[in-house]
């Protein structure tokens, strides 16, 4: 919520992901108007289509929608976990923002991931290697960015665990033996280890106890304020969105149906679907 400048950090245009074998009508015949993301002609699944968004440095953007709305797909495409079907994405800290990062070689994508992005998955197993210690998991991110000093790696890992309130004496234990909330904290430590300018959070508090959820959210908020990381927060939970984000995108059936300032989305929603979403919250 700090350090907003007039220059975008990430710009996405026409981002589309289709599973199966689409034809030229697949995008036209799916979406909120049809209440479905399955193409009636080809049975291909339009996970998301025509996603346009701009993220500014230090900004927190929420992506909200029901299961299957394509919100997780968007961040996974941007983190290169999935291959996009169409669309472009520019990152202003990479190639002066003139290169479509979705078209880069996988080696270069790996560089972008390791140096400029962090990801926190809903399931800690996706983001952590349980065969390594917590410190090892954090070390992985640091090693990938070219830090080869064990002493400094351990120093940084300790600092990160302190920041995310994981007992430092657990540094050399595998996260497999940790509670869900603690695994999530280790995952966050790993994601921010290289001070990336952009962090993706995919349903990070879903599946945690309410009290643990609150603590993790508090921590994310504090980290965001202190480090000024831009974040894309994916959640089906409007209270998470309200607590963390400046701006919100509402998705349904793989499309953006509405976007705006978070307080505007919550207090003056325009799209019928958003109104339904908000009214079911209150």
């Amino acid at each position: 919520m700090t350090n907003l400048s007039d220059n975008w950090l990430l710009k996405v245009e026409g981002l589309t992901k289709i599973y199966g074998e689409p034809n030229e009508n697949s995008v036209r015949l799916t979406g909120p108007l049809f209440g479905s993301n399955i193409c009636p002609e080809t049975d291909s699944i339009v996970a998301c289509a025509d996603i346009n968004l701009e993220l500014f440095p230090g900004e927190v953007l929420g992506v909200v929608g029901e299961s299957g709305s394509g919100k997780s797909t968007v961040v996974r495409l941007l983190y290169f976990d999935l291959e996009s079907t169409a669309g472009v994405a520019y990152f202003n800290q990479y190639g002066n923002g003139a290169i479509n990062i979705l078209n880069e070689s996988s080696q270069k994508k790996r560089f972008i991931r390791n140096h400029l992005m962090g990801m926190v998955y809903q399931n800690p197993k996706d983001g952590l290697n349980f065969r390594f210690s917590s410190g090892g998991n954090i070390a992985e991110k640091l090693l990938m960015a070219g830090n080869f000093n064990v002493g400094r790696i351990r120093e940084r890992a300790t600092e990160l665990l302190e920041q995310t309130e994981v007992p430092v004496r657990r540094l050399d234990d595998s996260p497999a033996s940790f509670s869900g909330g603690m695994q999530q904290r280790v995952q966050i430590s790993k994601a921010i280890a290289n001070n990336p300018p952009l962090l993706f959070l995919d349903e990070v508090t879903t599946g945690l106890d309410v009290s643990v959820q609150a603590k993790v959210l508090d921590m994310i908020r504090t980290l965001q304020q202190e480090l000024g990381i831009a974040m894309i927060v994916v959640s089906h939970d409007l209270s998470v969105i309200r607590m963390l984000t400046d701006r919100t995108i509402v998705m349904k059936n793989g499309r953006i149906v509405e976007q705006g300032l978070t307080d505007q989305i919550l207090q003056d929603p325009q799209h019928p679907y958003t109104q339904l979403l908000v009214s079911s919250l209150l």
Partner: protein
Amino acid sequence: MIPTFKKFDTQFNFAFIDENTKREIRRKLLKAICIPGYQVPYSSPEMPIARGWGTGGLHVTLSVIGKDDRFKIIDQGSDASVNACNLRDFVHRVTHCRVTFDTHEATLIQTRHRIPEEQLNDGQILVFQVPQPEPLRAVERYETKTREMHGEADYARMWVSLYEAFVRYGDIMQGAGYPVMVNGRHIMSPSPIPRWDVPNLNQSDCLYLFGAGREKRLYAVPPHTDVVPLEFEDVKFRIEQFSGIRCSMSGTGGAFMDELYNDLGDFRHVINDSDFLDKLVERKTRPQQWSNKYLQEVLDEMNANTDPQP
């Protein structure tokens, strides 16, 4: 000349393998030499010994050997082990090449798990028998995945496993097959040679060829190639120290030692490389050893400890 097995009275091509297959293996070897440290898949044809018993090394040896070669083979430093004897006998029978125990004299040396103590020179080829060519296998089970990791030079997990080993044991403990970075690009397994031998891969005058018959992979380190053991800025690679230990037969140190136990459970140290030991004991000369900083440190320490003695 076509060698013959007397026992079966059967005729074979020179060096046992037919020329087309040899050509295939040589082509793969050339590719391996062109991309130092890269594992090249190859046919790994059937041999009259079981896979896993040195077939990879044998494939390479028989594909590159010529009539004028002087052949030497060692198994863990010894010319006289059963495995070495049998393979030497086989290579001799199918090529009629001269065989030798002398490292300096040999032009082609096949080895299992050691690099000779004596420095190898321009024109010499060392062929390794490799049981497991994939250095990443410990951190990734799937071949498709490890190939991808090599392709993208994605070695973070290899590094993490070194980090983890260090954290757990307080030192880098891997004894044999210590992973090395070749030509700044590929991480390679040097086959299970001791750490003692690893520095000798770097910028050597000789050619190193690696054959893994069971896994069907060839790779190579051409002469004058950078081969760097993986190490952290503050946790350095070290070779075995053998501090103050001397060979009970030659009375000297500064070489890789075996511990020989007798039935009473007592042990004594003996230099592992049998040719090197022979030269020390029989000819009373110390052959030219490899020059690397790690070995130099050990030799310096040894000499410093000798001086005060009367």
